[in-house]
């Protein structure tokens, strides 16, 4: 067991723990926006996991996947924030408004 192997094993365990914790928030989040933010964190953890696997197995074939994930991985949380109705802890649903009442878009 070289030092590099031990360090990379620790990094993999830490990444799994990070993914599990963001999964906890995705399940327990009281609103859809909490789940959107945890999806964003999960995409970053997936990119980190792909980079770790590429550096362990010494290949670069998954780098285009990482580029695409970094580019479009945020659209999930973005569309959820833009179009999903917000729900607070008491369970009242309210659609987000983009401009004050009584006015139109400027």
């Amino acid at each position, binding site marked *: 067991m070289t*030092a*590099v192997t031990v*360090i*990379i094993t*620790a*990094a*993999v365990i*830490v*990444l799994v*723990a*990070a*993914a599990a*914790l*963001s999964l*906890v*928030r995705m399940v327990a989040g009281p*609103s859809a*926006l*909490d789940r*959107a*933010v*945890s999806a*964003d*964190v999960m995409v*970053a*953890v997936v*990119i*980190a996991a792909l*980079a*770790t696997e*590429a*550096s362990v197995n*010494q290949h*670069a074939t998954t*780098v*285009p996947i*990482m*580029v695409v994930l*970094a*580019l479009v*991985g*945020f659209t999930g*949380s*973005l569309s959820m*924030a*833009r179009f999903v*109705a*917000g*729900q*607070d*802890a*008491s369970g*009242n*649903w*309210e659609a*987000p*408004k983009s401009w*004050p*009442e*009584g006015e139109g878009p400027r």
Partner: protein
Amino acid sequence: MSWDAVQEVAGAVLLLLGAALCLTAALGLVRFPDIMSRMHAATKPQSLGLLFVLGGMALSLRDTRLLGLLILIAVLQLLTVPVAAHLVGRAAFRTNQLRTDLTDPDELADDLARAGFHRGSGTGDRQTDDQTDDHTPE
């Protein structure tokens, strides 16, 4: 120790540091009380952790052709995370999910109150007295 071995160990250490920062982001996501502070945790350590992981990968693979793509990944991540955070924060504010007992001061609410709109504090009731207010500044 040869220079290659030093670079390998440095790459592995950077990978571990980046993974630890991603763990910090997820830990803050679980432990912080409301959506706004969770976004603090989910954006800043996450971006820096990804930068460290990409740096560790560059040091482990030692391929100069990869460097452009890895810099591209870092730039794209740094460009998209603030956009998503801004939109999520705006949606959270407009749907009254901001806990005003944890927020001090709330300048946007003050501006909106001067314009005639009042926000609830997380209970979903939003009162707008646009019809009764005469829009004079206080």
